[in-house]
């Protein structure tokens, strides 16, 4: 089955470039450029950190500093892979509509392995943008041999597969338990898995935030500090093993490095073995979740309230708004993605708080006032991620249901504005909330808090309009998959343009923060209003001319 799957993937890849060759090659190049851009930024930060640890002739800092960087980078890598695989597995493993013909065949067990491979594959981006840049930076700073780099990459890959399989296995084990308890509701499974992911996120966050850096870095014991105390602190995380592999290569202790790779390999072997043992349960669990079309429910005596109960929408715009709101809220797939991005944002808060803590222990690593200007692009970057996932594909995802709006006596401008109002409201709330999570722990001044909040609100309104408008102007009814839609040429163009806009906003905001330059803020407002007006007009014009094939 896996052999056939790889053959199919190869054919699919080649077929992709058969039509619209130039456009598709351009899209691929743009996509690679975007990955390279982000990976480049991670490489820069990692190298900066590693070089910083080597500036002083302090053997302890020279050793523990890099180890701390490996541990943190790989911990984030592991968590993101776990999260990404969890969402992929939850959404795809038991969904019957596409796989039912294979599940009806004698080769049904193969679906477990094919889907597992897809889940692992869906996490490759984390390795590409975090782990590989880290390893290249490490290799450069510590002059790793080719073999050491190769073995370090191998350790990270083993670790990535372990994280992915652990995520799938946790879903699998919960499913077996639910099956035993005769619970066939997929939402219960989604709830349990979400609870596990959130618990892990809170645990990691607490562990990082509450880390006593003075104790771990042994400020009181400068004369004879021990790196093993530091390593011990991280030994409870699975990411410790690939981190120790790299660390030992850094120290030149190849034997210990290989020992850690062997532990990873052994762990992987044990997990695959357990997986193999659970394989026979797959069909039974799959069948259970198919009942009631993937969402078997008990009949409720009390009838549930319907969408239009209570205040009835007075205008067509309000009707669409209400429909958009509830169909988005009710989609478990959307919910999981929302949760995924929200957790990333949450993790970012942990990192920023950590940086703030750092600023108190050394002179060289102080971000100080620049921290304020750093928060803005971080919030806007995450808002852009939400826009890429939810807002940009919004019109294209209506492909099968577009006839409902298209045949109704309503102007497409109303549909557009209803969607805009909903997305803008949700994203502004999210932006301001995430901002509060920065403002409060940092004790920012009232004036700066207000200016920062206003800048975020205007920028979010602009980015949302830009994303929705581009999505409306380049509707693609050929795909329903938001990932595919977001990585199309218009999707990538949006991402790149949004990054340019964020950089510009950050610069203009920085000018204001560093020198009370009000002209820069005025320029920012003018540019944003201009983008909103122009793209609103272009999108509505395009929607009114649209044909529904």
């Amino acid at each position, binding site marked *: 089955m896996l052999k056939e799957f790889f053959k199919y993937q190869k054919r699919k890849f080649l077929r992709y470039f058969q039509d619209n060759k130039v456009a598709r090659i351009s899209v691929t190049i743009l996509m690679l450029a975007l990955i390279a851009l982000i990976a480049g930024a991670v490489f820069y930060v990692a190298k900066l950190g590693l070089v910083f640890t080597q500036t002083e002739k302090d053997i302890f800092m020279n050793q523990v500093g890099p180890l701390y960087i490996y541990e943190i980078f790989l911990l984030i890598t592991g968590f993101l892979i776990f999260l990404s695989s969890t969402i992929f597995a939850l959404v795809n493993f038991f969904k019957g509509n596409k796989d039912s013909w294979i599940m009806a065949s004698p080769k049904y067990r193969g679906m477990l392995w094919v889907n597992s491979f897809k889940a692992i594959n869906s996490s490759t981006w984390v390795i590409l943008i975090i782990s590989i840049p880290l390893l290249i930076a490490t290799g450069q700073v510590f002059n790793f041999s080719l073999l050491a780099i190769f073995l370090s990459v191998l350790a990270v890959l083993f670790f990535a597969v372990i994280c992915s399989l652990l995520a799938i296995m946790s879903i699998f084990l919960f499913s077996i338990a639910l099956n035993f308890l005769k619970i066939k509701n997929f939402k219960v499974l989604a709830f349990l898995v979400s609870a596990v992911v959130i618990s892990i996120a809170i645990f990691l966050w607490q562990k990082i935030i509450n880390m006593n850096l003075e104790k771990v870095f042994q400020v009181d014991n400068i004369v004879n500090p021990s790196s093993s105390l530091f390593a011990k602190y991280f030994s409870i995380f699975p990411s410790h093993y690939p981190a120790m592999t790299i660390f030992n290569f850094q120290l030149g202790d190849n034997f210990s490095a290989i020992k850690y790779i062997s532990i990873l390999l052994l762990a992987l072997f044990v997990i695959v073995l357990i997986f193999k043992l659970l394989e026979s349960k797959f069909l039974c669990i799959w069948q259970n979740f198919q009942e009631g079309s993937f969402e078997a429910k008990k009949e409720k005596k009390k009838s549930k309230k319907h969408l239009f109960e209570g205040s009835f929408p007075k205008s067509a715009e309000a009707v669409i708004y209400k429909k958009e709101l509830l169909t988005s809220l009710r989609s478990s797939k959307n919910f999981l993605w929302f949760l995924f991005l929200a957790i990333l944002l949450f993790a970012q808060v942990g990192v920023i708080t950590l940086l703030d803590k750092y600023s108190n222990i050394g002179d060289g690593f102080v971000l100080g006032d620049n921290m304020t200007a750093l928060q803005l692009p971080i919030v806007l970057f995450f808002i852009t991620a939400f826009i890429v996932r939810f807002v940009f594909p919004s019109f294209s995802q209506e492909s*099968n249901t577009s006839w409902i709006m298209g045949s109704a006596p309503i102007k497409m401008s109303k549909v557009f504005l209803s969607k805009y109002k909903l997305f803008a409201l949700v994203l502004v709330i999210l932006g301001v909330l995430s901002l509060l999570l920065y403002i409060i722990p940092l004790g920012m001044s009232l004036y700066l808090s207000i200016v920062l909040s206003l800048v975020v609100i205007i920028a979010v309104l602009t980015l949302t309009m830009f994303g929705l408008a581009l999505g409306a102007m380049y509707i693609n009814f050929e795909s329903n998959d938001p990932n595919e839609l977001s990585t199309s040429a218009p999707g990538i163009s949006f991402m790149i343009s949004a990054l340019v806009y964020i950089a510009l906003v950050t610069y203009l905001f920085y000018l204001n923060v560093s020198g009370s330059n009000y002209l820069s803020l005025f320029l920012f407002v003018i540019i944003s209003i201009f983008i909103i007006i122009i793209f609103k007009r272009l999108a509505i014009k395009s929607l009114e001319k649209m044909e529904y094939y």
Partner: protein
Amino acid sequence: MLEIKNLNKKFANFLAVKDLNLKVNEGELFSLIGPNGSGKTTIIKNILGLLRPSSGDILINGESIKDSPIKVKEQLAYIPDEPKIWNHITGEEFLYFSGALYGMKKEDISKKIPELLAHFNLKGIEKKYFENYSRGNKQKFSILAALLHNPKLILVDEPIVGLDPESAEIAMNLLHKFTKSGGTVFMTTHTLPVAQKYSSKIGILHQGELIATNTLDNLRKEIKSDSASLSEIYFNFTKHA
């Protein structure tokens, strides 16, 4: 009621509808039959304003879909061949949503829903999400949504696909009753016995061209066979086209 004037629809270099002229009067149930890819759905989508005519015009009660799309759409209802509706919305919510889109008041919708549900015996499942409905039940809800706001013209693309025989009969009777009360139905279908039984006028489409349009009796006269079934008429016309 419906007047199609010199309609042409071109997709790139392919002419899907060729110089179509057609009139459907009030109270008629017009069936358009033709092989796959002959342009039936394209014509319906042009009438609905889902596609734009390359040339020609479509008038509903004298209003052009090109010039006054909103006014025209207010008079129409559409039952598509694939009843795709948002997964996370219930049948009842869809009916409220459809009514509200056509400017109906909540009280009027609430009053009409039980009446409509009773036609297909859907009471009890109206609060389930669309993703839990069978294809047939989805189709039933899309038929009810079309009838909800009292349109003047209902455009139906394959009315009974996915319906069980009893429901198919109910659906066609509903459409027939609708025409008796002054409404008009424009329907495309491959189910020729259904078209033969219910249509007041039939059009035969072949490669985007309307090759015949008349009542069943007159079509029989055209092929000089008084007892010919619609199926025989269809083959006769398409073979010689």
